[in-house]
């Protein structure tokens, strides 16, 4: 029960007014960006990365985690009330949620979503507390071959397994890998692809890449869409935001099933919560068909409960994978990894040993953030929906100004701003032509790890490629990868067949 004492120590650390303030601010910002379509926790954390220059690491990281969880709380609000999910992670819960709202049960749908997100996040956080140290211990034996396998696993999983089209995911991966190569090669000191520009010797800063791609790219994309209309049919919630005993009993199994789907997907670099939310939705629909009075299509409470719990469970275990293995499994986790690196902290097996106090405070922060988010979301969901009235032009102009500020603050250089513009236009092209953004971020963050561990492994073994599959851990990782590819192929095949019928 060492974990419990550590966790209590973490609580003692963060029960200070300033830490509580950052938990609250993070929850507030996260819910806000979750509510607003087009914005997301990844963009919000990216825009706030410059704060790492001035804030104490614990406070900044607690705030960023609050944003991550908050994004998954808020995303269903617009989906339920207006049928415009704030994020792709809320698409699954919007189907039945909007139908519930149309039947006059908007308040109950919102409550189901908020409680589901709370349960999923809580269960995942508990698991992280108990298993992250074990996982980290297991990972302390990782050598270059294992880290290389981990990086390859992440690359292929996020680009080929999860993306709708493997070739589009790989395209994004390639772009990210190119960006990661610019700058001085650490082992040899060789300047690479800097072409005499001193500003490029340090490489393209991760702050610049994330802010340009996620924020500026989205601003340009919104400009590209000006003139298209979006139909909005808002259902304003009325009545009690609480669930009746019967409703609670109906939703509870779905919350738990959804949590079960979400947990493993946080550890797999599957690009976030979309896949488990859809799996949870599909399961609830199948179960519903067997009931005496099927509710799907007319606003089923289970159809909201399952996906919402799955989404936040994913975020929880994703934080576990990030802390214990240094493996980012979603876009937001990738940017959080960058935030750790800004402080000279390297998430992974050694983080718990070297900066245990920060990790345990952060884990305690998870629980506080969940409670704060539940309070912010359960009674106030209709208030959050008012955010949707902020005119788009002001919102995105503000985001653009913040992006420019963040990039300038990162290096105080005009070259960075020019790179921002170029990557922003690239982000526009990727959005217009359906190239996913998350693989770029994973590639930029894990690219150097993959390269240096490959070279280490080869250097240590006299260029014997067998070293890459010499340990049980590497073999297991590659086998998992093959299984994932097979599953993705089967899923696509099944979907195609279902679409043909």
């Amino acid at each position, binding site marked *: 029960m060492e974990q419990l004492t550590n966790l209590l120590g973490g609580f003692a650390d963060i029960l200070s007014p300033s830490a509580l303030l950052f938990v609250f601010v993070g929850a507030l910002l996260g819910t806000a960006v979750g509510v607003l379509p087009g914005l997301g926790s990844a963009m919000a954390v990216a825009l706030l990365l410059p704060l790492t220059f001035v804030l104490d690491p614990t406070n900044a990281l607690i705030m960023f985690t609050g944003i991550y969880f908050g994004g998954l709380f808020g995303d269903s609000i617009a989906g339920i009330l207006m049928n415009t999910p704030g994020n792709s992670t809320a698409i699954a819960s919007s189907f039945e949620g909007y139908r519930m709202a149309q039947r006059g049960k908007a308040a109950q749908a919102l409550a189901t979503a908020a409680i589901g997100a709370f349960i999923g996040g809580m269960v995942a956080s508990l698991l992280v507390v108990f298993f992250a140290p074990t996982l980290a211990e297991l990972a302390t034996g990782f050598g270059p071959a294992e880290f290389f396998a981990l990086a390859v696993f992440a690359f292929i999983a996020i680009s080929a397994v999860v993306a709708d089209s493997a070739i589009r995911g790989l395209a994004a991966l390639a772009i990210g890998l190119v960006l990661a190569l610019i700058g001085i090669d650490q082992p*040899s000191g060789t300047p690479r692809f800097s072409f005499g520009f001193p500003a490029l010797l340090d490489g393209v800063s991760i702050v610049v890449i994330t802010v340009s791609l996620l924020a500026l790219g989205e601003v340009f994309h919104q400009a590209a869409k000006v003139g298209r209309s979006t139909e909005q049919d808002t259902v304003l919630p009325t009545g009690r935001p609480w669930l009746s005993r019967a409703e609670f009993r109906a939703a509870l199994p779905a919350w738990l099933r959804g949590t079960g789907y979400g947990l493993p997907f946080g550890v797999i670099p599957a690009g976030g919560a979309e896949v488990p939310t859809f799996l949870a939705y599909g399961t609830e629909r199948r179960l519903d068909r067997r009931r005496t009075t099927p509710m799907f299509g007319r606003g089923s409470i289970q159809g909201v409960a399952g996906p919402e719990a799955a989404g936040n469970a994913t975020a929880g275990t994703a934080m576990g994978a990030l802390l214990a293995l240094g493996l980012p499994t979603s876009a937001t986790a990738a940017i959080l990894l960058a935030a750790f690196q800004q402080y000279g902290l390297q998430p992974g097996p050694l983080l718990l040993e070297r900066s245990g106090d920060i990790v345990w405070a952060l884990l305690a922060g998870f629980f506080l953030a969940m409670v704060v988010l539940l309070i912010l979301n359960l009674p106030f969901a209709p208030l959050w929906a008012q955010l949707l*009235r902020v005119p788009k032009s002001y919102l995105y102009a503000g985001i653009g100004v913040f992006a420019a500020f963040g990039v300038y603050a990162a290096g105080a250089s005009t070259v960075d701003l020019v790179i921002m513009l170029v990557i922003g236009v690239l982000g526009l092209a990727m959005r217009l032509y359906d190239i996913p953004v998350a693989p770029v971020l994973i590639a930029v963050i894990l690219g150097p790890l993959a390269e240096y561990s490959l070279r280490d492994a080869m250097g240590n073994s006299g260029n014997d490629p067998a070293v890459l599959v010499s340990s049980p851990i590497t073999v297991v990782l590659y086998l998992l990868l093959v299984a994932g590819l097979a599953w993705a192929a089967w899923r696509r095949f099944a979907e195609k067949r279902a679409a043909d019928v």
Partner: protein
Amino acid sequence: MRTRPAHLSRGALVVPAILVALGIFLLYGTLTMEVVGDGGLFGPTTMPWIVAVLCFVVAAGLTFDILRPRPEYDGVAAGAVPAAVPAGGAAAGGADDAAAATGHTGVDPGSPDGVGPDGVGPDGAGSGSEASGDAVADAPDAVNSAAVLTAVGGVAAFIVVLPWLGWILAATGLFTALAAALGNRRWFPVVLAGLALASAIQVVFSGLLGISLPAGFVGGF
């Protein structure tokens, strides 16, 4: 018959073109690289070679994926470049794959002028978006290029003037340009909001948190 979605149209070939350009960038940079010390078999040039090959292979694959015939979209007139075809209720186009519904959930009226609605912001009174009725055209790649150029130009201009005008004025200009690109032409409130945001950032981040921002000729505050 449906028109091809944007990511399968000819315009999408931009992406393979970018990949080829990146591949050439890597090839050129690798061939001219001055390797420090003994590179060895797995030296600083190994990964660039691998990534360059990846770029070319993916570019080829993506080109094939974009150009290959797709009976579900092309119908009889194979290869026709999608124009603004009235598709009525079929505007739910690409929603067959639920997971792909991230991009094009909205429906788009053909945007005939290519310019945003003049004078009125798209969200004047909150939900007052332009009612375009039921006549909806399925034109997924209808890109408002005037708006995009305004936004990109605004950022470019910001970069140029930032050292001279300083943060507050340059950022106010950037805000105004972006808001205008997004269709808001009510200059007075926009400029005022931009000025407020730029000043707030200056005060909070530069004044309180000590991040340095260019002061420009106004200097001092």
